[in-house]
């Protein structure tokens, strides 16, 4: 796998949320506005890259890796948890508004399966450079997914798109133009499940179509 593939895989092919379905809990809970999604993306990207870096650094020394082999999950969790706590404290101090709206879901990054999953499956087996790229790719892929969900949910549920703070794109005119109102249902968690489910269905449909095509190509080749 070259570096470019390694970087691009997080967006579509191995997208953590849309394909691997990891980390769905915070993704469904905080995607009520684009601002929340962006804040979560930043926090997540920070934790993801740093945890991948540190863990691949630890594992790069063979002796140390053998030493922590029986307790490696505990070590990973300690590292990830302290990174998350640092993010949490920084956010509470410097971005209190965002901290309030993200609430408990910042701390939940700790048990977000993607971080631990990448640490175990990728970072502990690959070089530091690759792991950093993997972290960035996964972080951006996750951000991409939750930003899409939050765009859909906020637009349908509120009629607005909150980019950051007071920078709000008001699209309610679009709704009144066709004579309807926004549907607050989509800002509830049930609406989140619905949006995620529909996106998953669309991605699956596209995938199936691609597979069918490649099968037909193979048949013709034979």
């Amino acid at each position, binding site marked *: 796998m070259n570096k470019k593939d390694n970087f691009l895989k997080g967006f579509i092919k191995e997208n953590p949320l849309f394909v691997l379905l990891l980390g769905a809990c915070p993704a469904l809970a905080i995607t009520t506005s684009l601002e929340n999604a962006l804040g979560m993306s930043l926090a997540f990207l920070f934790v993801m890259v740093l945890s991948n870096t540190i863990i691949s650094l630890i594992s790069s020394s063979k002796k140390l890796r053998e030493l922590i082999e029986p307790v490696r999950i505990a070590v990973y969790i300690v590292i990830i948890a302290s990174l998350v706590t640092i993010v949490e404290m920084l956010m509470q101090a410097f971005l209190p508004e965002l901290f309030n709206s993200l609430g408990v879901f910042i701390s939940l990054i700790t048990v977000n399966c993607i971080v631990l999953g990448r640490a175990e499956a990728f970072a502990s087996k690959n070089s530091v450079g690759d792991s950093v790229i993997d972290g960035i790719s996964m972080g951006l892929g996750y951000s991409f997914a939750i930003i899409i969900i939050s765009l859909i949910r906020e637009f349908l549920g509120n009629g607005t798109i909150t980019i950051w703070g007071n920078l709000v794109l008001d699209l309610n005119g679009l709704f009144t133009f066709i*004579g*309807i109102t926004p*549907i*607050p*249902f989509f800002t*509830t968690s*049930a*609406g989140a499940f*619905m949006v995620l489910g*529909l996106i998953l*269905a669309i991605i699956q449909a596209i995938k199936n179509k691609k597979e069918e095509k490649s099968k037909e190509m193979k048949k013709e080749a034979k």
Partner: protein
Amino acid sequence: MEKYLVSSAPYLRRADHNHTTTRIMVDLLIGLSPVILYSIFKNVVFPLIKGTTDVLGALYPLLTLVVSPIYSLLLEALCLYIMKKKDIKSFKDLIEELKVGYGIFPGLFIVLISPPQIKFWILLLSITIGEVVGKMLFGGFGQNIFNPAIVGRAFMAFAFSSEVSSSYLNVYEQTLDAYAGATPLIQFSTLETITYENAVSNFGSLLDFFIGSVPGSLAETSALCCIIGYIYLSVRKVIDYKVPLIYVATVFLNTLFIGLVLGQGIWYPTFNILSGGLMFGAVYMATEPVTSPKTNLGRIMNAMMLGVLTVLFRLVGNLPEGVATSIITMNIFSLVINKYCIHMRVDGKLDKNEVPGLVIFLVIFMGLFLYNIISFL
């Protein structure tokens, strides 16, 4: 244990040749006709006679009643075209697919259980959700887990709760001061002390509930029309006659005990089975062939659980209605009940290792039944 395969509904009996899917559809429409005719009379003709509105305002419910099934059918055709592009080569193929798809029913049922004055775009959006998400995404007729009509209605109820609760009165009822709350059940759920006077007398007498001249969704108010439809459909063997009977009987029994605890008379259970969508739901929704269990025993279990769940949601819980929610809840368990009962159906007798399942069911049922009563003590 041997494995048995449960294929998807509908099951046609070879005994009578006429019993094709088209035949079932026509029968179902005939069975629905008393309800539809009464709702047209109540919401369209009656306000016109009384002269409380102009023609356009009165015709609104009729318009929704006509447009919804057509819209639903068009959606189904569109979905079929997108999903099965390969199989559908010509227009004729599409018609053939539509014939076995029952495409009009989600739309028809949703409009029948919606408030008469609901906004058009809300209705159409709910039908879209019910038809596309509830039915076609699962693979079309016979493959869906949840009753598509109830999926759409539940979406409407939870997404637009204020819109829904404010559009129950039809044009005639809107001009009357007598109806303070929206429907009898919504008013009932806000009562502090329950007496016959403040629960029923606002809306007339229990006879009005039986005939259906109380505010409510388009077609659910008339118990009489539902019973007529029930008799026709049972005689034609389109639905299982046991399910509505057991469902309503369970609700009646459970609320009878609750009524005794509260010191109310026989009007209390009668009010509960006559009001809201219980009769309509029991006759037309709980008997839906695809999403309800397929064996005799399974259907009885399903109907009993529906009864206690309806009472739980309606009287103990926070939902004034509860019929749609309980049906959708039991849809989830259809698969389990099917798997359990199919062995018994094939063996023809109660096996030793099937007893625990029955015991578990009875414990859950009795537990809920008693819990409903105890929570009023």
